[in-house]
């Protein structure tokens, strides 16, 4: 049994909550007491029927306003897979929350209301999926019951969306006509959609291959912590603890430590307290080196024949996430994996309209803006291009005074 993390983007109007409710309900992940609790609340509302959105809207403010504000994580499993859903709000004022949910997703479900087709929100969600480089996209064309399960309606939407996917370079797009309300094509294939040749949504989620999304060719090992027991029997022990974020490490590998550039060889590897010959992404491990070199948290151990880029000038697509505006020339802390350095946003090249992809000039950025910037760092950053290796190309910006995370950087 493996693991799939996916994000559902959309609003109550698209049937997002109904869809999640349906997946949880049909996979028997909602318990009786939880259903009773939402039934009790639903009765307080005017509609009179069970409101599945109450399952996902966890905060009082969300229930009061009937909207999703923050990302909620939901869990269900089938005999084949464990699923983690990042349930993100769809409105433009919560773009930063969607970006947050998208950052760890293997797959995005983009909901389209069959009556409305591809709309501004569809484009925005697709643009975010593409910016965050989510490997797989499912376009769930929902509310098919309201268009008489029409194949023509479905086909036209597929044609429209294919344009969007092409312009964004989305790699793996799958289209599924569904009715979340009636469960059509959610768990079982629906006879009302017999013209559709693909599988049901759940079946697809269970079978989409995600193992291949893990990069096993470019070894990157950010050092998080140095283990030095300093006891009598382990008095020379010095282990570099971290997680293999990509690639494979074997004993005997020639390695380079960045940014220092020191080189050595892997003497031994520990995984879960045992000595092993190799470790691979995304395992956590302890590496031991042949030579005594200065390595501390924030350094990255890579293989000498496969080096990342190393620079102090970064081209970055930045999603601004703070209520205070971004001011060019201001200093921020930049954190990429375990490395933390001071940095300055030097200039804004352009602002990206997340509904249309249009680029406009800008001198500042406010909450939810996506901009292209140049960032200079106080010391060199070993990184990979985000589009090639998400694990070593994503960084956050931290306000030095408030300590708040203010930006998400996709390094180009």
């Amino acid at each position, binding site marked *: 049994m493996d693991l799939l993390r996916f994000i559902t983007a959309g609003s109550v109007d698209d049937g997002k909550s109904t869809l999640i409710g349906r997946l949880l309900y049909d996979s028997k992940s909602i318990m009786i007491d*939880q259903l009773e609790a939402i039934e009790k609340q639903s009765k307080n509302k005017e509609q009179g029927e069970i409101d599945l959105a109450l399952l996902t809207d966890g905060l009082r403010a969300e229930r009061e306003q009937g909207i999703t504000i923050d990302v*909620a994580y939901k869990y269900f499993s089938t005999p084949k897979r464990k699923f983690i859903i990042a349930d993100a709000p769809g409105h433009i004022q919560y773009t930063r929350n969607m970006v947050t949910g998208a950052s760890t997703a293997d797959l995005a479900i983009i909901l389209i209301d069959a009556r409305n087709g591809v709309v501004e929100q569809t484009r925005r969600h697709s643009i975010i999926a593409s910016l965050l480089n989510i490997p797989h996209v499912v376009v769930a064309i929902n509310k098919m019951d309201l268009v008489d399960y029409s194949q023509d309606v479905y086909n036209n939407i597929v044609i429209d969306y294919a344009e969007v996917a092409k312009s964004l370079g989305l790699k793996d797009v799958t289209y599924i006509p569904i009715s979340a309300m009636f469960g059509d094509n959610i768990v079982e294939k629906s006879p009302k959609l017999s013209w559709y040749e693909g599988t049901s949504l759940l079946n697809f989620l269970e079978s989409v291959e995600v193992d291949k999304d893990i990069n096993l060719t470019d070894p990157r090992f950010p050092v998080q912590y140095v283990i030095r027991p300093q006891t009598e029997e382990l008095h020379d022990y010095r282990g570099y603890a971290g997680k293999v974020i990509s690639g494979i490490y074997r004993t005997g590998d020639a390695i380079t430590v960045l940014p220092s550039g020191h080189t050595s060889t892997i003497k031994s590897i520990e995984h879960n307290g045992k000595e092993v010959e190799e470790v691979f992404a995304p395992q*956590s491990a302890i590496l031991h080196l042949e030579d005594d070199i200065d390595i501390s948290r924030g350094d990255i151990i890579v293989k000498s024949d496969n080096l990342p880029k190393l620079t102090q000038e970064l081209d970055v697509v930045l999603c601004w996430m703070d209520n205070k505006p971004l001011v060019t020339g201001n200093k921020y802390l930049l954190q990429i994996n*375990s490395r933390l350095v001071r940095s300055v946003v030097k200039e804004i090249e352009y602002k990206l309209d997340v509904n249309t992809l249009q680029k406009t000039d800008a001198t500042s950025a406010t909450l939810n803006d996506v901009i292209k910037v140049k960032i200079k760092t106080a010391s060199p950053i070993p990184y990979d291009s985000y589009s090639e290796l998400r694990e070593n190309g994503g960084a956050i910006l931290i306000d030095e005074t408030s300590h708040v995370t203010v930006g998400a950087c996709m390094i180009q």
Partner: protein
Amino acid sequence: MSKYSLDYLDHLESEAIHIFREVAGQFERPALLFSGGKDSITLVQLALKAFRPGKFPFPLVHIDTGHNFPEALEYRDQLAKTLGEKLIVRNVEDTIKAKHLTEPKGKFASRNALQTYTLLDTIEEFKFDACIGGARRDEEKARAKERIFSVRDEFGQWDPKLQRPELWNTYNGRITKGENVRVFPISNWTELDVWNYIRREKIELPSIYFSHEREVIDHEGQLVAVSDFIKLDDTDKVLRKKVRYRTVGDMTCTAAVESHASNIDDIISEITATKTSERGETRIDDKVSEAAMEDRKKNGYF
């Protein structure tokens, strides 16, 4: 499956180890909040994997309400001794005396809410800047919204509207003096994941998790253990039943479930078949209001 495929438990385990090491790397004075329950026992196992052969870079801290199951306390002391790790215990009883707090009244007078005072005092006493806890997002819907690194202000308060965005696997642990961070390494685990992990790792648990005979009363469908901490009414009938605990909290606010499950396999089959959530079945304190957990967390609760 290729030889480079990982089981979902391996993914969850590696994620949790990574979080533990981020705590060790980012904070000066962390602590692991240990309750003697299965979730914090799982945390200890993960900490062993993250830091052995080194010592834990934090003590185990237990906030003892005085209403704990003796089996859980015994387990706690034994575990700290076997591991050779430091255990700090602070008692709610002492806080009540020192601060003249008012004990809740009623049949199941629970010190659950009073724990927060002792916890905040303990954080202040030791200047803890990060407290690692075993909360999971599947437990409750306010928890489902909480970050893995969750910042609390100097009053220990959680502000759900002002949470930091948490992207990729990058955790921002920077805080101002006086603030602290609650860290939840098993956020993404479900109850069943924890049990499957306990089975896989052959982790020992306190005996109350397994079926045993106990004197209980039936309170609105929930079975509550007879103990010195609850007041029996004349109408209460003391029953002798085969029960086990699905969660381990205070004797006053944790209900038992009828069960013959005497080993982990049986427990896993039972949980797989159950139709009631963990909190719904076993927590007497959560049904009070829809936002009970959100309110407690805002006030500094775990």
